[in-house]
Protein backbone atom coordinates (compact mmCIF):
# COMPACT_ATOMS: atom_id res chain seq x y z
CA UNK A 1 0.00 0.00 0.00
CA UNK A 2 2.93 2.31 0.84
CA UNK A 3 4.28 1.66 -2.65
CA UNK A 4 1.02 2.92 -4.15
CA UNK A 5 1.22 6.19 -2.24
CA UNK A 6 4.83 6.69 -3.22
CA UNK A 7 4.39 5.72 -6.89
CA UNK A 8 2.39 8.80 -7.85
CA UNK A 9 -0.45 6.66 -9.26
CA UNK A 10 -2.70 7.74 -6.44
CA UNK A 11 -2.14 11.37 -7.46
CA UNK A 12 -3.12 10.53 -11.05
CA UNK A 13 -6.17 8.66 -9.74
CA UNK A 14 -7.31 11.52 -7.51
CA UNK A 15 -6.73 14.09 -10.28
CA UNK A 16 -8.77 12.04 -12.75
CA UNK A 17 -11.50 11.60 -10.16
CA UNK A 18 -11.63 15.35 -9.58
CA UNK A 19 -11.90 15.98 -13.33
CA UNK A 20 -14.69 13.38 -13.59
CA UNK A 21 -16.66 14.98 -10.75
CA UNK A 22 -16.30 18.40 -12.39
CA UNK A 23 -17.33 16.98 -15.78
CA UNK A 24 -20.29 15.31 -14.12
CA UNK A 25 -21.45 18.60 -12.61
CA UNK A 26 -20.85 20.39 -15.91
CA UNK A 27 -22.75 17.88 -18.05
CA UNK A 28 -25.60 17.73 -15.54
CA UNK A 29 -26.14 21.49 -15.60
CA UNK A 30 -25.43 22.39 -19.23
CA UNK A 31 -27.92 21.27 -21.85
CA UNK A 32 -26.42 20.06 -25.17
CA UNK A 33 -22.96 20.13 -23.62
CA UNK A 34 -19.79 19.51 -25.58
CA UNK A 35 -19.03 16.20 -23.80
CA UNK A 36 -22.28 14.43 -24.65
CA UNK A 37 -22.40 16.00 -28.13
CA UNK A 38 -18.88 14.73 -28.87
CA UNK A 39 -19.64 11.19 -27.69
CA UNK A 40 -22.96 11.20 -29.58
CA UNK A 41 -21.18 12.33 -32.74
CA UNK A 42 -18.55 9.62 -32.29
CA UNK A 43 -21.13 6.89 -31.77
CA UNK A 44 -23.56 8.21 -34.42
CA UNK A 45 -21.93 6.39 -37.34
CA UNK A 46 -21.64 3.20 -35.35
CA UNK A 47 -25.30 3.25 -34.36
CA UNK A 48 -26.37 4.10 -37.91
CA UNK A 49 -24.52 1.07 -39.29
CA UNK A 50 -25.76 -1.30 -36.59
CA UNK A 51 -29.38 -0.08 -36.90
CA UNK A 52 -29.21 -0.58 -40.67
CA UNK A 53 -27.72 -4.04 -40.19
CA UNK A 54 -30.52 -4.91 -37.75
CA UNK A 55 -33.10 -3.92 -40.37
CA UNK A 56 -31.73 -6.67 -42.58
CA UNK A 57 -31.53 -9.09 -39.68
CA UNK A 58 -33.92 -12.01 -39.89
CA UNK A 59 -35.84 -12.81 -36.74
CA UNK A 60 -35.41 -16.47 -35.86
CA UNK A 61 -35.43 -17.87 -39.43
CA UNK A 62 -34.08 -21.33 -40.08
CA UNK A 63 -31.16 -22.09 -42.39
CA UNK A 64 -33.47 -23.38 -45.15
CA UNK A 65 -35.68 -20.31 -44.95
CA UNK A 66 -32.62 -18.10 -45.08
CA UNK A 67 -31.23 -20.03 -48.04
CA UNK A 68 -34.53 -19.75 -49.85
CA UNK A 69 -34.69 -16.04 -49.17
CA UNK A 70 -31.08 -15.62 -50.23
CA UNK A 71 -31.71 -17.38 -53.56
CA UNK A 72 -34.79 -15.28 -54.22
CA UNK A 73 -32.96 -12.09 -53.37
CA UNK A 74 -29.99 -13.04 -55.50
CA UNK A 75 -32.29 -13.53 -58.45
CA UNK A 76 -34.11 -10.29 -57.77
CA UNK A 77 -30.85 -8.47 -57.36
CA UNK A 78 -29.73 -9.49 -60.83
CA UNK A 79 -32.95 -8.11 -62.29
CA UNK A 80 -32.77 -4.90 -60.33
CA UNK A 81 -29.14 -4.17 -61.08
CA UNK A 82 -30.10 -2.31 -64.21
CA UNK A 83 -32.29 0.10 -62.30
CA UNK A 84 -31.30 3.32 -60.64
CA UNK A 85 -28.72 3.07 -57.87
CA UNK A 86 -30.79 5.00 -55.35
CA UNK A 87 -34.05 3.19 -56.06
CA UNK A 88 -34.31 1.57 -52.65
CA UNK A 89 -33.40 4.73 -50.76
CA UNK A 90 -36.12 6.67 -52.55
CA UNK A 91 -38.65 3.88 -52.03
CA UNK A 92 -37.91 3.64 -48.34
CA UNK A 93 -38.11 7.40 -47.87
CA UNK A 94 -41.38 7.43 -49.78
CA UNK A 95 -42.87 4.70 -47.60
CA UNK A 96 -41.84 6.56 -44.47
CA UNK A 97 -43.35 9.84 -45.68
CA UNK A 98 -46.53 8.14 -46.87
CA UNK A 99 -47.33 7.09 -43.31
CA UNK A 100 -47.56 10.74 -42.33
CA UNK A 101 -49.22 12.01 -45.46
CA UNK A 102 -52.75 11.67 -44.10
CA UNK A 103 -51.81 13.59 -40.98
CA UNK A 104 -50.21 16.33 -43.05
CA UNK A 105 -53.37 16.54 -45.18
CA UNK A 106 -55.49 17.04 -42.07
CA UNK A 107 -53.16 19.58 -40.51
CA UNK A 108 -51.67 21.75 -43.20
CA UNK A 109 -49.96 23.96 -40.61
CA UNK A 110 -47.77 21.11 -39.26
CA UNK A 111 -44.14 21.05 -40.32
CA UNK A 112 -42.87 17.46 -40.16
CA UNK A 113 -39.40 16.02 -40.07
CA UNK A 114 -39.54 12.23 -40.66
CA UNK A 115 -36.95 10.30 -38.66
CA UNK A 116 -35.92 6.77 -37.75
CA UNK A 117 -35.02 5.29 -34.37
CA UNK A 118 -31.26 4.93 -34.31
CA UNK A 119 -30.77 3.26 -30.96
CA UNK A 120 -32.59 2.33 -27.77
CA UNK A 121 -30.76 2.17 -24.51
CA UNK A 122 -31.13 -0.97 -22.44
CA UNK A 123 -30.87 1.09 -19.25
CA UNK A 124 -33.98 3.11 -19.99
CA UNK A 125 -37.08 1.42 -18.69
CA UNK A 126 -39.42 3.98 -20.27
CA UNK A 127 -38.38 3.11 -23.82
CA UNK A 128 -36.83 6.44 -24.78
CA UNK A 129 -34.84 6.25 -28.00
CA UNK A 130 -32.49 8.26 -30.17
CA UNK A 131 -33.49 9.35 -33.67
CA UNK A 132 -31.26 10.07 -36.65
CA UNK A 133 -32.20 13.75 -37.00
CA UNK A 134 -31.12 16.66 -34.83
CA UNK A 135 -30.93 20.44 -34.62
CA UNK A 136 -29.50 20.58 -38.16
CA UNK A 137 -32.98 19.44 -39.32
CA UNK A 138 -34.70 22.20 -37.28
CA UNK A 139 -35.55 19.84 -34.43
CA UNK A 140 -35.43 21.38 -30.98
CA UNK A 141 -36.07 20.31 -27.39
CA UNK A 142 -39.78 19.99 -26.59
CA UNK A 143 -40.96 19.25 -30.14
CA UNK A 144 -43.80 16.67 -30.22
CA UNK A 145 -42.98 13.30 -31.81
CA UNK A 146 -45.69 11.40 -33.70
CA UNK A 147 -46.06 7.84 -34.81
CA UNK A 148 -48.31 6.78 -37.65
CA UNK A 149 -51.32 6.59 -35.32
CA UNK A 150 -50.71 9.08 -32.57
CA UNK A 151 -48.44 10.91 -30.19
CA UNK A 152 -45.30 9.03 -29.13
CA UNK A 153 -43.53 11.57 -26.95
CA UNK A 154 -41.37 14.65 -27.21
CA UNK A 155 -37.77 15.61 -27.90
CA UNK A 156 -35.97 15.68 -24.55
CA UNK A 157 -32.47 16.43 -25.82
CA UNK A 158 -31.15 17.38 -29.23
CA UNK A 159 -27.74 17.84 -30.72
CA UNK A 160 -26.65 18.48 -34.30
CA UNK A 161 -27.27 15.03 -35.76
CA UNK A 162 -29.32 13.12 -33.21
CA UNK A 163 -32.13 13.75 -30.76
CA UNK A 164 -33.48 11.76 -27.83
CA UNK A 165 -37.20 11.07 -27.65
CA UNK A 166 -38.80 10.77 -24.19
CA UNK A 167 -41.95 8.72 -24.63
CA UNK A 168 -45.42 9.13 -23.17
CA UNK A 169 -44.61 6.01 -21.10
CA UNK A 170 -42.22 8.14 -19.02
CA UNK A 171 -43.31 9.75 -15.72
CA UNK A 172 -41.68 12.95 -17.02
CA UNK A 173 -44.20 13.22 -19.90
CA UNK A 174 -46.64 15.63 -18.17
CA UNK A 175 -48.80 16.30 -21.24
CA UNK A 176 -52.14 18.08 -20.86
CA UNK A 177 -54.85 15.74 -22.19
CA UNK A 178 -58.63 15.58 -22.58
CA UNK A 179 -61.20 12.81 -22.91
CA UNK A 180 -62.93 13.61 -26.21
CA UNK A 181 -66.22 12.03 -25.13
CA UNK A 182 -66.65 13.50 -21.65
CA UNK A 183 -64.34 16.56 -21.82
CA UNK A 184 -62.61 15.48 -18.59
CA UNK A 185 -59.09 16.83 -18.46
CA UNK A 186 -55.95 15.39 -16.87
CA UNK A 187 -52.25 14.83 -17.33
CA UNK A 188 -50.57 12.08 -19.34
CA UNK A 189 -47.81 10.61 -17.23
CA UNK A 190 -46.08 7.25 -17.48
CA UNK A 191 -45.32 4.77 -14.77
CA UNK A 192 -42.75 2.01 -14.32
CA UNK A 193 -45.64 -0.31 -13.43
CA UNK A 194 -47.30 0.07 -16.85
CA UNK A 195 -44.47 1.10 -19.20
CA UNK A 196 -43.37 -2.43 -20.05
CA UNK A 197 -46.99 -3.23 -21.04
CA UNK A 198 -47.01 -0.23 -23.40
CA UNK A 199 -49.54 1.65 -21.26
CA UNK A 200 -49.53 5.16 -19.85
CA UNK A 201 -51.73 6.98 -17.36
CA UNK A 202 -54.30 9.76 -17.83
CA UNK A 203 -53.83 11.02 -14.28
CA UNK A 204 -55.08 13.74 -11.91
CA UNK A 205 -58.73 13.13 -12.79
CA UNK A 206 -61.37 14.82 -10.65
CA UNK A 207 -63.25 12.55 -8.23
CA UNK A 208 -66.49 13.20 -10.17
CA UNK A 209 -64.94 12.37 -13.57
CA UNK A 210 -66.98 10.52 -16.23
CA UNK A 211 -64.10 8.84 -18.09
CA UNK A 212 -64.97 5.30 -19.20
CA UNK A 213 -63.42 2.41 -21.10
CA UNK A 214 -63.00 2.99 -24.83
CA UNK A 215 -62.86 6.80 -24.62
CA UNK A 216 -60.28 8.44 -26.84
CA UNK A 217 -57.71 10.68 -25.18
CA UNK A 218 -56.15 13.58 -27.10
CA UNK A 219 -53.91 16.53 -26.32
CA UNK A 220 -55.60 19.72 -25.08
CA UNK A 221 -53.19 22.03 -26.87
CA UNK A 222 -53.68 24.71 -24.23
CA UNK A 223 -50.00 25.09 -23.35
CA UNK A 224 -48.88 25.74 -26.91
CA UNK A 225 -46.31 22.95 -26.57
CA UNK A 226 -48.40 20.29 -28.30
CA UNK A 227 -50.95 20.90 -31.04
CA UNK A 228 -54.59 20.38 -30.10
CA UNK A 229 -56.29 17.04 -30.78
CA UNK A 230 -53.24 14.82 -31.22
CA UNK A 231 -54.47 11.31 -30.48
CA UNK A 232 -52.72 9.71 -27.51
CA UNK A 233 -54.65 6.48 -27.05
CA UNK A 234 -57.75 4.75 -25.76
CA UNK A 235 -58.91 4.26 -22.15
CA UNK A 236 -58.53 0.65 -21.09
CA UNK A 237 -59.25 0.80 -17.38
CA UNK A 238 -59.92 3.21 -14.51
CA UNK A 239 -57.93 3.11 -11.29
CA UNK A 240 -57.27 4.99 -8.07
CA UNK A 241 -53.75 6.10 -7.19
CA UNK A 242 -53.37 5.78 -3.41
CA UNK A 243 -49.98 7.52 -3.58
CA UNK A 244 -51.44 10.52 -5.39
CA UNK A 245 -54.97 10.18 -3.93
CA UNK A 246 -56.60 10.78 -7.29
CA UNK A 247 -58.25 8.77 -10.06
CA UNK A 248 -56.42 7.81 -13.23
CA UNK A 249 -57.32 6.09 -16.48
CA UNK A 250 -55.03 3.48 -17.97
CA UNK A 251 -54.43 4.48 -21.61
CA UNK A 252 -53.43 2.14 -24.38
CA UNK A 253 -51.58 4.07 -27.13
CA UNK A 254 -52.42 3.15 -30.73
CA UNK A 255 -48.73 2.43 -31.36
CA UNK A 256 -46.43 -0.07 -29.71
CA UNK A 257 -44.05 2.58 -28.42
CA UNK A 258 -41.60 -0.07 -27.19
CA UNK A 259 -40.84 -1.10 -30.77
CA UNK A 260 -41.63 1.93 -32.91
CA UNK A 261 -39.09 2.73 -35.60
CA UNK A 262 -40.44 5.39 -37.96
CA UNK A 263 -41.56 8.66 -36.40
CA UNK A 264 -42.22 12.26 -37.40
CA UNK A 265 -41.17 15.27 -35.37
CA UNK A 266 -43.53 18.26 -35.49
CA UNK A 267 -41.15 21.20 -35.65
CA UNK A 268 -43.82 23.87 -36.02
CA UNK A 269 -47.61 24.30 -35.97
CA UNK A 270 -50.15 27.11 -35.68
CA UNK A 271 -50.39 28.35 -32.12
CA UNK A 272 -47.03 26.91 -31.08
CA UNK A 273 -45.72 28.60 -27.93
CA UNK A 274 -48.64 31.04 -27.74
CA UNK A 275 -49.37 30.53 -24.06
CA UNK A 276 -45.67 30.44 -23.25
CA UNK A 277 -45.20 33.74 -25.06
CA UNK A 278 -48.23 35.34 -23.46
CA UNK A 279 -47.09 34.40 -19.94
CA UNK A 280 -43.63 35.94 -20.47
Amino acid at each position, binding site marked *: MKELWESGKIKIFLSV*LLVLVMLSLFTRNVENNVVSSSVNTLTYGLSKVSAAA*KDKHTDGMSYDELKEEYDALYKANRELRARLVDYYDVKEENARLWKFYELKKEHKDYQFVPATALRRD*SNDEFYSFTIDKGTSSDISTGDPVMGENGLIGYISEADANTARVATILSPQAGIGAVDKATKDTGIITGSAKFADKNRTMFAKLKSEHKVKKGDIITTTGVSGIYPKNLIIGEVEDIGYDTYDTSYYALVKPYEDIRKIKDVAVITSFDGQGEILRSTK
Partner: protein
Amino acid sequence: MNERATGFVRYLAYAMEIILLYVLGSTPGLLPEIFGAKPTLLLCVALTAAIFEREIPAMIIGIVCGVLIDLGHSNSIGLFTIGLAIICFIVGYAANNLVVAKFTTFLLYAFVTVGGLFMLYYLFGFVWAGVSDHWDYFMNHLLSRMVQTFLLSIPIYFLNRFIYHMLGTDE
Protein backbone atom coordinates in the same frame (compact mmCIF):
# COMPACT_ATOMS: atom_id res chain seq x y z
CA MET B 1 6.41 -9.29 -30.66
CA ASN B 2 8.00 -7.05 -28.09
CA GLU B 3 6.27 -5.92 -24.93
CA ARG B 4 5.07 -2.58 -26.35
CA ALA B 5 3.59 -4.23 -29.43
CA THR B 6 1.73 -6.91 -27.45
CA GLY B 7 0.45 -4.23 -25.09
CA PHE B 8 -0.81 -2.18 -28.02
CA VAL B 9 -2.57 -5.17 -29.59
CA ARG B 10 -4.11 -6.06 -26.23
CA TYR B 11 -5.59 -2.60 -25.79
CA LEU B 12 -6.78 -2.70 -29.39
CA ALA B 13 -8.54 -5.99 -28.54
CA TYR B 14 -10.21 -4.33 -25.53
CA ALA B 15 -11.27 -1.40 -27.75
CA MET B 16 -12.81 -3.78 -30.30
CA GLU B 17 -14.56 -5.66 -27.50
CA ILE B 18 -16.01 -2.41 -26.11
CA ILE B 19 -17.23 -1.29 -29.57
CA LEU B 20 -18.76 -4.69 -30.31
CA LEU B 21 -20.59 -4.93 -26.98
CA TYR B 22 -21.73 -1.29 -27.20
CA VAL B 23 -23.30 -2.06 -30.59
CA LEU B 24 -24.84 -5.28 -29.25
CA GLY B 25 -26.32 -3.47 -26.26
CA SER B 26 -27.61 -0.36 -28.02
CA THR B 27 -28.97 -1.65 -31.32
CA PRO B 28 -32.79 -1.80 -31.10
CA GLY B 29 -34.11 -5.36 -30.94
CA LEU B 30 -30.75 -7.09 -31.30
CA LEU B 31 -30.59 -8.54 -27.79
CA PRO B 32 -33.80 -10.03 -26.38
CA GLU B 33 -35.25 -8.57 -23.20
CA ILE B 34 -35.48 -11.15 -20.43
CA PHE B 35 -37.95 -10.25 -17.66
CA GLY B 36 -38.15 -6.71 -18.99
CA ALA B 37 -34.42 -5.97 -19.08
CA LYS B 38 -31.19 -6.41 -21.00
CA PRO B 39 -27.73 -6.81 -19.45
CA THR B 40 -25.34 -3.86 -19.24
CA LEU B 41 -22.57 -5.47 -21.28
CA LEU B 42 -20.04 -2.63 -20.96
CA LEU B 43 -20.10 -3.03 -17.19
CA CYS B 44 -18.95 -6.64 -17.65
CA VAL B 45 -16.05 -5.51 -19.86
CA ALA B 46 -14.83 -2.90 -17.38
CA LEU B 47 -15.05 -5.25 -14.39
CA THR B 48 -13.32 -8.17 -16.11
CA ALA B 49 -10.58 -6.14 -17.82
CA ALA B 50 -9.69 -4.43 -14.52
CA ILE B 51 -8.78 -7.70 -12.85
CA PHE B 52 -6.03 -8.36 -15.41
CA GLU B 53 -4.69 -4.85 -15.91
CA ARG B 54 -2.68 -2.46 -13.78
CA GLU B 55 -4.37 0.44 -11.95
CA ILE B 56 -4.18 3.22 -14.55
CA PRO B 57 -5.14 1.19 -17.68
CA ALA B 58 -7.91 -0.47 -15.64
CA MET B 59 -9.22 2.94 -14.60
CA ILE B 60 -9.14 4.23 -18.21
CA ILE B 61 -11.12 1.19 -19.43
CA GLY B 62 -13.58 1.78 -16.56
CA ILE B 63 -14.01 5.45 -17.54
CA VAL B 64 -14.56 4.68 -21.25
CA CYS B 65 -17.20 2.05 -20.44
CA GLY B 66 -18.77 4.28 -17.77
CA VAL B 67 -19.06 7.27 -20.14
CA LEU B 68 -20.75 5.09 -22.78
CA ILE B 69 -23.17 3.65 -20.20
CA ASP B 70 -24.02 7.05 -18.68
CA LEU B 71 -24.45 8.86 -22.00
CA GLY B 72 -26.51 5.94 -23.29
CA HIS B 73 -29.42 6.90 -21.08
CA SER B 74 -28.86 10.52 -20.11
CA ASN B 75 -27.10 13.64 -21.29
CA SER B 76 -24.55 13.66 -18.51
CA ILE B 77 -21.76 11.53 -17.13
CA GLY B 78 -22.26 10.39 -13.57
CA LEU B 79 -22.58 7.32 -11.42
CA PHE B 80 -21.26 4.65 -13.80
CA THR B 81 -18.29 6.74 -14.99
CA ILE B 82 -17.15 7.75 -11.52
CA GLY B 83 -18.09 4.40 -9.96
CA LEU B 84 -16.22 2.35 -12.55
CA ALA B 85 -13.18 4.64 -12.42
CA ILE B 86 -12.90 4.06 -8.66
CA ILE B 87 -13.71 0.33 -8.74
CA CYS B 88 -11.39 -0.45 -11.67
CA PHE B 89 -8.50 1.47 -10.11
CA ILE B 90 -8.89 -0.34 -6.78
CA VAL B 91 -9.36 -3.74 -8.43
CA GLY B 92 -6.39 -3.14 -10.76
CA TYR B 93 -4.23 -2.42 -7.73
CA ALA B 94 -5.61 -5.23 -5.56
CA ALA B 95 -5.35 -7.88 -8.28
CA ASN B 96 -1.68 -7.06 -8.83
CA ASN B 97 -0.59 -6.55 -5.24
CA LEU B 98 -2.98 -7.84 -2.62
CA VAL B 99 -5.05 -10.82 -3.81
CA VAL B 100 -4.58 -13.61 -6.34
CA ALA B 101 -6.66 -12.91 -9.47
CA LYS B 102 -8.48 -16.19 -9.88
CA PHE B 103 -12.01 -17.11 -10.94
CA THR B 104 -13.52 -17.46 -7.46
CA THR B 105 -12.11 -14.08 -6.43
CA PHE B 106 -13.58 -12.60 -9.61
CA LEU B 107 -17.03 -14.08 -8.93
CA LEU B 108 -17.14 -12.55 -5.46
CA TYR B 109 -15.89 -9.19 -6.69
CA ALA B 110 -18.28 -9.14 -9.68
CA PHE B 111 -21.24 -10.02 -7.46
CA VAL B 112 -20.46 -7.22 -5.01
CA THR B 113 -19.66 -4.55 -7.62
CA VAL B 114 -22.58 -5.29 -9.97
CA GLY B 115 -24.98 -5.38 -7.02
CA GLY B 116 -23.47 -2.27 -5.45
CA LEU B 117 -23.43 -0.14 -8.61
CA PHE B 118 -26.99 -1.02 -9.60
CA MET B 119 -28.25 -0.46 -6.06
CA LEU B 120 -26.66 3.01 -6.08
CA TYR B 121 -28.25 3.64 -9.51
CA TYR B 122 -31.62 2.59 -8.08
CA LEU B 123 -31.24 4.67 -4.92
CA PHE B 124 -30.12 7.87 -6.68
CA GLY B 125 -32.13 7.49 -9.88
CA PHE B 126 -35.42 6.29 -8.41
CA VAL B 127 -35.78 6.32 -4.63
CA TRP B 128 -34.04 9.66 -4.09
CA ALA B 129 -35.61 11.12 -7.23
CA GLY B 130 -39.04 10.33 -5.77
CA VAL B 131 -40.34 7.97 -8.48
CA SER B 132 -43.55 6.67 -6.91
CA ASP B 133 -43.44 3.07 -8.16
CA HIS B 134 -39.71 2.51 -7.82
CA TRP B 135 -40.25 -0.87 -6.19
CA ASP B 136 -42.06 -2.13 -9.33
CA TYR B 137 -39.14 -0.93 -11.40
CA PHE B 138 -36.71 -2.72 -9.10
CA MET B 139 -38.59 -6.01 -9.21
CA ASN B 140 -39.57 -5.94 -12.90
CA HIS B 141 -36.42 -4.52 -14.48
CA LEU B 142 -33.41 -3.89 -12.31
CA LEU B 143 -33.24 -7.29 -10.63
CA SER B 144 -33.24 -9.04 -13.99
CA ARG B 145 -30.61 -6.65 -15.34
CA MET B 146 -28.36 -7.25 -12.32
CA VAL B 147 -28.59 -11.03 -12.66
CA GLN B 148 -28.02 -10.96 -16.43
CA THR B 149 -25.06 -8.58 -16.11
CA PHE B 150 -23.48 -10.76 -13.43
CA LEU B 151 -24.00 -13.96 -15.43
CA LEU B 152 -22.66 -12.47 -18.66
CA SER B 153 -19.57 -11.16 -16.90
CA ILE B 154 -18.46 -14.82 -16.55
CA PRO B 155 -17.93 -15.55 -20.30
CA ILE B 156 -16.47 -12.06 -20.73
CA TYR B 157 -14.05 -12.83 -17.86
CA PHE B 158 -12.81 -15.88 -19.77
CA LEU B 159 -12.57 -13.87 -22.99
CA ASN B 160 -10.47 -11.20 -21.30
CA ARG B 161 -8.36 -13.81 -19.55
CA PHE B 162 -7.70 -15.36 -22.95
CA ILE B 163 -6.75 -11.94 -24.37
CA TYR B 164 -4.47 -11.30 -21.41
CA HIS B 165 -2.77 -14.69 -21.63
CA MET B 166 -2.25 -14.36 -25.38
CA LEU B 167 -1.14 -10.74 -25.32
CA GLY B 168 -0.19 -10.07 -21.70
CA THR B 169 3.24 -9.07 -20.41
CA ASP B 170 5.39 -11.38 -18.28
CA GLU B 171 5.61 -8.99 -15.32
